[in-house]
């Protein structure tokens, strides 16, 4: 063997890279280490603050729990700049069960919170008020006043308003906004557009119902932190048309991309840009289209993830970018027609970044739900590869079981993909 190997020895030495550091390497690594150690020290320092904040939050929650039996929710409306008030309206809270809770902010804006909603309010500069709707439905009304601006966040959707009457819903189907009076600016990622009275976004979402009693309260009677009975859903006559699917001219006026024709045209153009390799402009076009909520909003939202995955592939983006984009898709279209393709992309990214725990979890969930799907082959191969690579007792047996079951879309097995896994699990 040694004689045979002599032929390779010379080549081996030749192909070996120079092992001496490049000029300045010592300084570069030292600087990088200094930054790293500094960041670690900062992290340790802030950990203490977080622990204190968590303890304070636990204390507040504990107090709220103790006061559950009272007739008024254990929150106070924000009164002054800098106040932070957490108002969690759990459905089990007796005082607000089966009723709405009315909030009046110090600035005069009024919010009707539906039971079961989780709303966080925060008053700070330069925003006059910021609310985060984690779950549920609210009706918001603010009179237009120069220099005053509110922002309501629901998942990754931001609604900015100066003065308007509108509702926001955040549930398993995603976020929906209905404007009853005035106009709001809806922002999603880098894109934003205006939504005017009589419009609901996204177009295919069920419009939010405006109830008369709620309308009466937000516009008139002052009843801070009181509760009111649920009234029958009877919108005022002037608003009834807007509570159904908005007519084409109305939606076109609010956002030119929500009509089916305009949406299809914009989607075609974005695809052309993508085909031509102009990924930045394509991404911008897809983002606008996705935010507008028209017929091709779902296609556009998926395309954004696809483009981000391409950027990741080219090394131009971190794995966070496609994961975030696909996360947005999942939030908006949990049962969308690209949901399984999103699963495949996300799995690829998880495996690529070596997150084997989440990748195995993703495989288990996909194969548990869609074991006969044509994409299941990739999940089986990925799981087998991770297990074979991990090499814990029983892993190889499980990997080989996966391979035995694995068939691609053509009903065949891909020897090139499977060979390294079988080699790793071969008895030595």
């Amino acid at each position: 063997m040694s004689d045979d190997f002599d032929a390779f020895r010379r080549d081996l030495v030749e192909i070996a890279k120079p092992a001496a550091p490049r000029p300045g390497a010592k300084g570069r690594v030292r600087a990088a280490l200094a930054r790293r150690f500094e960041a670690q020290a900062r992290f340790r320092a802030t950990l203490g603050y977080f622990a204190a904040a968590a303890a304070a939050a636990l204390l507040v929650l504990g107090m709220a729990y103790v006061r559950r039996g009272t007739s008024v929710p254990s929150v106070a409306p924000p009164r002054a700049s800098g106040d932070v008030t957490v108002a969690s309206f759990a459905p089990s809270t007796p005082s607000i069960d089966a009723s709405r809770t009315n909030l009046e902010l110090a600035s005069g804006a009024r919010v009707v919170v539906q039971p079961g909603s989780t709303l966080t309010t925060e008053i700070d500069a330069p925003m006059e008020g910021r609310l985060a709707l984690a779950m549920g439905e609210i009706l918001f009304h603010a009179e237009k006043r120069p220099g005053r601006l509110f922002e309501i966040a629901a998942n990754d959707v931001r609604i900015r308003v100066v003065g308007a009457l509108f509702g926001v819903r955040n549930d398993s189907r995603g976020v929906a906004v209905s404007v009853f009076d005035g106009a709001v600016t809806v922002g999603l990622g880098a894109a934003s557009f205006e939504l005017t009275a009589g419009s609901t976004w996204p177009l295919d979402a069920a419009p939010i119902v405006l109830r008369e009693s709620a309308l009466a309260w937000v516009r008139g009677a002052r009843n801070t932190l009181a509760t009111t009975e649920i009234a029958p859903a009877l919108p005022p006559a002037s608003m009834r048309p807007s509570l159904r699917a908005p007519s084409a001219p109305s939606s076109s006026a609010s956002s030119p991309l929500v009509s089916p024709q305009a949406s299809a045209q914009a989607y075609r153009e974005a695809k052309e840009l993508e085909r031509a390799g102009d990924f930045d402009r394509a991404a911008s076009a897809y983002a606008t289209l996705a935010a507008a909520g028209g017929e091709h909003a779902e296609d556009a939202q998926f395309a954004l993830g696809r483009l981000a995955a391409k950027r990741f592939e080219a090394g131009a983006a971190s794995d966070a970018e496609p994961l975030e984009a696909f996360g947005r898709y999942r939030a908006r279209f949990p049962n969308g027609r690209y949901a399984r393709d999103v699963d495949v992309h996300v799995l690829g990214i998880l495996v690529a970044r070596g997150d084997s725990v989440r990748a195995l979890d993703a495989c288990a969930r996909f194969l548990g739900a869609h074991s006969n799907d044509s994409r299941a082959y990739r999940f089986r191969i990925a799981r087998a590869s991770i297990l074979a690579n991990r090499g814990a007792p029983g892993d190889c047996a499980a990997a080989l079981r996966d391979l035995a079951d694995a068939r691609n879309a053509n009903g065949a097995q891909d020897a090139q993909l499977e060979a390294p896994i079988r080699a790793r699990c071969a008895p030595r």
Partner: protein
Amino acid sequence: MTPNAPRDAAPPEGARAAAPSFADVYEQHFDYVHRLVVRLALSSGSDHEDLVQEVFAVVHARLHAFEGRALLTTWLFQIAYRVVGAHIRKERVRRFALRAFALERHDDHQPPSAPGRIDGGRRARALAQALDALPMKKRSALVLFEIEGWSCAEIAEKMGIPVDTVYTRLHHARAELARRVARALKEETR
């Protein structure tokens, strides 16, 4: 003595040496760690300086636990070996994923050459790929012996294994390398 390794005195029998400062370790052993990383990682993925940084981050975190029972260079070798090994494992999975999910172009695919014509460049490339594909244990023994010129006894000491195991790994590494290169060249000439 291992070539290019900085001299550090052997610890007295049973004695516990005072832990050196991180700055001293960095200054005196940077080139040694860099060389180790380049040799052990070969062409596996990221910049070697990132891996050197990883090694020294571990050194920084663990230096207080260095008891001086082994040579400092042996201790550094063990850290570098583990850091590079973990990196190679991740890199293999990453490459597999990128290929399996069609996220990576197959840039390494070359058009087949005319039958019977194998130039030195192809042979070198086949050799580099075969070396990259060798398991870490075999590869490191081969590289340290054939390229770095370490003796089997030195490799055994640094890796903390019996000398006979080094001989075995070298034997299997050479055989596997020759097999892989022959197969790659055969496929190219088809």
